[in-house]
Structure formats: structure tokens, C-alpha cells
């Protein structure tokens, strides 16, 4: 009975509750430290400098636009790879593959998710970029394209697992209903199962993109690290530099508390806010979905 709580039970319960709240504390702490170290930038660097197109900290040019455009180009390219291939694989695994094949494919895709990004970056330097340089006749293979291809691969497992979950949770009766009406398996997938799972599929795409924009080591190693504003479509064939790579490459060499240091934290803050926006939107979709399914079932 509740009144017979021993001291041990009392303490354990408190510790467990406190641990439960820890995730909120950590998100708040992370945000606090990013603000604390990043916001001084707004006072130290004139607005026109910070949002200019030149990043050259040694001469006090702190324009973050080329870095943002670099992240956007690489992420967009990665999405072009990860979304179709990720969704295609998810549909194949969930709707078409026989059980034994599914049991092989799922761990294989998870394996890709487990590969350290530094290993993919390493292969990008030694294998992929020399190949791209020769194939496309470029001055260097270390380009946004190399980054996009590898990043696409890194985002695929996220897209596959979330989308596969969503497809899997579509009730079997929906499919049976479609078959009974004479639809082929393909028509059922295309017109019943996918539309029914659309919010989960959308979440998969968003989380995949979020994964790509935050990835650091691979892009730092293979995109050539040139902070040039991407203005045209062909920028994908030239070197770029992302926000993440800039932080990783430069943080080790700046003096603590310097303007450059604060600016790198400011970029980190922008990345944090982007991931927060992506994830809160994604979880809002998931929660709404749950509520709707509860309504339908009750």
C-alpha cells in the first residue's frame, strides 16, 4: 500500500522521476550554453558583416551566408538521393518483400546507419571523389556532389526505418479492402497504403533531411571546404563549405571568448534551432496522427 512506502522506495521513486525530467533539462542546458556563447556575436559583429557573403575570419569577415548556402546545397542534393531511394526501399521492405528477405534487408539498412560517418568520409576522399573527378572531368572531386551522395546514404536508414514503421502501421484491413475491390497490389500501395501513411512518410522525409543538415565529419572531409556563396545550380559541382564543417574545422583553433569563437557558437545556435524546428514539427505530426487513430478506433 502507498502508506507502507519504505525509505528505499521513496528515494528510488524520486531518483527515477528526476531522471525522467533530465531530457528536458539537457535540451534547456544545451540551448542556454549556445545562447550564452553565441549571442555576443550580435553585439560584436555588425549585422551587415554577419549576413554578408564573405567568410574569412582571419580578416574579420564573418559572413555566414556562404555557409548556410553550402549546407542548403549539400542537404538538397542529399534529399534528392535519400528521399526516393529511402522511400522506395521502405515500400519494398514493407509491402513487397517476402518475410525472409525482409529479415535480411532490415538489419542491412540498420548496418548503414551504424557506420561511423568518418569512415564514409574517408572512403569519399580515397574512392568516391577521385572517381567523380574523372567521370565528370572536374578540377577536383571534393565537391558538394560528393557530399550530397554520401550524405544521402547517411540519411537513407533514417528515412527507411521511419517510413517503414508508418507503412507497417496501416491496418491490414485497408489493403484487404482494396484487394477485394479488385485493385492490384501496386494500385493498393499507390492509392491506399501510401496515402494512409502519408504523415508518417512526411515525418520520415523531414527527419532524414534533419539528419543530413546536421551531419559533420563526412561533409567536412569531402566537400572541399570552400566558403563560396552557391548561386547557381552548377554549384553542386564545385567545393562548398557547410555550417557544421565550419564549426568542426575552426573551433579547435580559435581563442576562447574571441569574436570568431562566439560566431562559431552562433552558427551552432542556428543549427540547433533548425533541428528543433524540424523535430518539433515532426513530433507534432506524430502526436496528431496518434490522436486521430485513437478516435478512429474508439
Amino acid at each position: 500500500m502507498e502508506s507502507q512506502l519504505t525509505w528505499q522506495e521513496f528515494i528510488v521513486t524520486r531518483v527515477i522521476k528526476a531522471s525522467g525530467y533530465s531530457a528536458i533539462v539537457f535540451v534547456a542546458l544545451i540551448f542556454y550554453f549556445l545562447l550564452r556563447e553565441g549571442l555576443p556575436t550580435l553585439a560584436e559583429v555588425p549585422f551587415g558583416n554577419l549576413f554578408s557573403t564573405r567568410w574569412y575570419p582571419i580578416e574579420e569577415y564573418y559572413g555566414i551566408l556562404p555557409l548556410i548556402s553550402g549546407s542548403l546545397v549539400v542537404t538538397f542534393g542529399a534529399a534528392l538521393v535519400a528521399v526516393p531511394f529511402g522511400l522506395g526501399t521502405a515500400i519494398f521492405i514493407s509491402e513487397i518483400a517476402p518475410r525472409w528477405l525482409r529479415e535480411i534487408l532490415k538489419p542491412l539498412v540498420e548496418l548503414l546507419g551504424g557506420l561511423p560517418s568518418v569512415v564514409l568520409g574517408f572512403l569519399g576522399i580515397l574512392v568516391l571523389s577521385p572517381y567523380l573527378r574523372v567521370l565528370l572531368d572536374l578540377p577536383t572531386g571534393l565537391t558538394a556532389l560528393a557530399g550530397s551522395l554520401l550524405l544521402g546514404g547517411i540519411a537513407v536508414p533514417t528515412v527507411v526505418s521511419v517510413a517503414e514503421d508508418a507503412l507497417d502501421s496501416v491496418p491490414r484491413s485497408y489493403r484487404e479492402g482494396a484487394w477485394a475491390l479488385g485493385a492490384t497490389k501496386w494500385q493498393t500501395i499507390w492509392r491506399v497504403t501510401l496515402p494512409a501513411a502519408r504523415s508518417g512518410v512526411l515525418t520520415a522525409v523531414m527527419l532524414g533531411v534533419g539528419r543530413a543538415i546536421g551531419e559533420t565529419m563526412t561533409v567536412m572531409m569531402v566537400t572541399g571546404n570552400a566558403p563560396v556563396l552557391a548561386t547557381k545550380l552548377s554549384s553542386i559541382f564545385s567545393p562548398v563549405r557547410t555550417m557544421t564543417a565550419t564549426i568542426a574545422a575552426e573551433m579547435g583553433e580559435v581563442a576562447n571568448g574571441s569574436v570568431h569563437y562566439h560566431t562559431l557558437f552562433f552558427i551552432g545556435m542556428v543549427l540547433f534551432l533548425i533541428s528543433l524546428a524540424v523535430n518539433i514539427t515532426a513530433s507534432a505530426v506524430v502526436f496528431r496522427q496518434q490522436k486521430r487513430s485513437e478516435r478512429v478506433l474508439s
Partner: protein
Amino acid sequence: MKTFLPLNRNLTQRLGFGLLTAMTLATVTPIIAVIAYIIIQGAPAISLEFLTSAPYNGMRNGGIMPAIVGTLYLTIGTAIFSVPLGVAAAIYLSEYAADTWLTRTIRIAIINLAGIPSVVYGLFGLGLFVLFLQFGTSILAASLTLSIMTLPVIISTSEEALRAVPQSFRTVSISLGATRWQTIRRIVLPEALPGIITGIILGLERAAGETAPILFTGAAFFLPRLPGSPFDATMALPYHLFVISTQIPEMPFQIQYGTALVLIAFVLGMNLVATVIRSRARAKRQW
């Protein structure tokens, strides 16, 4: 209104299935190719000396022992902080928390923790552990940073394992007079243990392979000896691979591939162990 002849429908289906199969192949083949390629290229570098000696001659000769040991230290350090906290948080969410706005906020916080870019964790670790708490660039600061990054993986997989234990187990235990904590410790936790261990290993696997969070919190470019205390910096496998593939000119390929092989063996070995534990527990489960 579109109408399709049966022949067309079947043709569309065949084309569609063919396309999806091709896409799946295009996704899966590179995974196998990458792993096979690293094994083939890296295997000749692996020797007892490579695994047990320190690098010398600007890292162009010798082995990678300090990096292997460093990654072990970091993984253990991460486990020390993240396992108790993560499992306790999972117990809270599965066994105690009611569906209130606070619980929902916790869940959103966990989802967000999982999505924060790894380099941002590095910044946070630098700001809080290295500078504010003055742990310096150390195993301690790097382990703490990695722990927080690992937390969402451990919490969500452990919670799933706990929730999979049938409710009737709890009801029976409580009705026999056990307290809530007794029920959790003696009934629920043992049943969920294999799933929890799987989650822990998957979380630590990620921590072991990460580079960005340790870049400015604990990774050393080169150390002639092993770190002596948690307040020392350490070499680590992923960072070492980054260093020898980008920072050192004329680095022998063999050592690079050898290091990559040891790293993926370490990480995928953990993955394999987790998979085996999970499938064994599933096979043994009686409910």
C-alpha cells in the same frame, strides 16, 4: 475517370515492382560493397603489432593501440553516465508517467535530443564541461558529452522493452502485495533486460563511432602514452582515422584502411552482439 485494361494494370505493377526492387538493390549493394571493400583493403594491415603498438614517425609507422584503448575508455565512460540515467528515465516514462503535458514535453525533448547535430553536442560539451566546469579537454568531458548524445537512444529503446512486458505481470505482482518498485525491480526489469541491453549497446555503438562531439572536448591528435586519468585527453579511433586521412601528407594507405577496418569491426561487432541478444530473447520469450 481513368480506366485501365487488365493488361495495363499488370504491366504497371510489374514496372513498379521492378523499379522498387532496383531502388532497394541500389540502396543495399553499396552498403555491402563498402564493408567488403574496407575488409579487403584493411585486412593486410592487421597484425598483432598494429593492434598493440603506438604509432611513431609522425604516425606513418607503428600501430593504433592508443586509439583503440582511448575509444574503449570513452565507451566505458559514456556507459557509466548514460546507462543509469537512460534506464531510469525509461522506467519513469513506462512505469510512472501519466499522459500529461509534462510527459509530452519530456517526449518532445527526447526526440529533439536525438536530432541535435553531433557537432552542436561538441560545442555544448566545450561550453559546459571543458570551460564552465573546467574539466579541460579530457576523457571525462568527452564521455559526458557523448552520454547526453546517447541518452535518447537508450531511453527510447529501453522504454519500448519495458512496455513490451505484459500489463498482467504487473497486476499480479501488485495484487500479491508487492510495491511498485518491487514489481519493477523483480518482475518488469528482468523480463525487459535483453531489450534494454540491446538498446544500451546500440547507443554506445553510436558513441564509439562519433568524431564531432569529441573534437573539442577530449580528442588528442597524438599521445605518445596512454592517458593516466579521466582528466587527460585521449586518442580515439574515429578521430585518429580523420587525422590520418586528412591531416598527414603521404600517409600509407594500408594504415588508413587498417584503422578504418578496426573501427568498423569495433562498431559493427557491437551491432552484431545487440542483434544476437535481441533475436535470442525473442526466440525464448514465452509471452
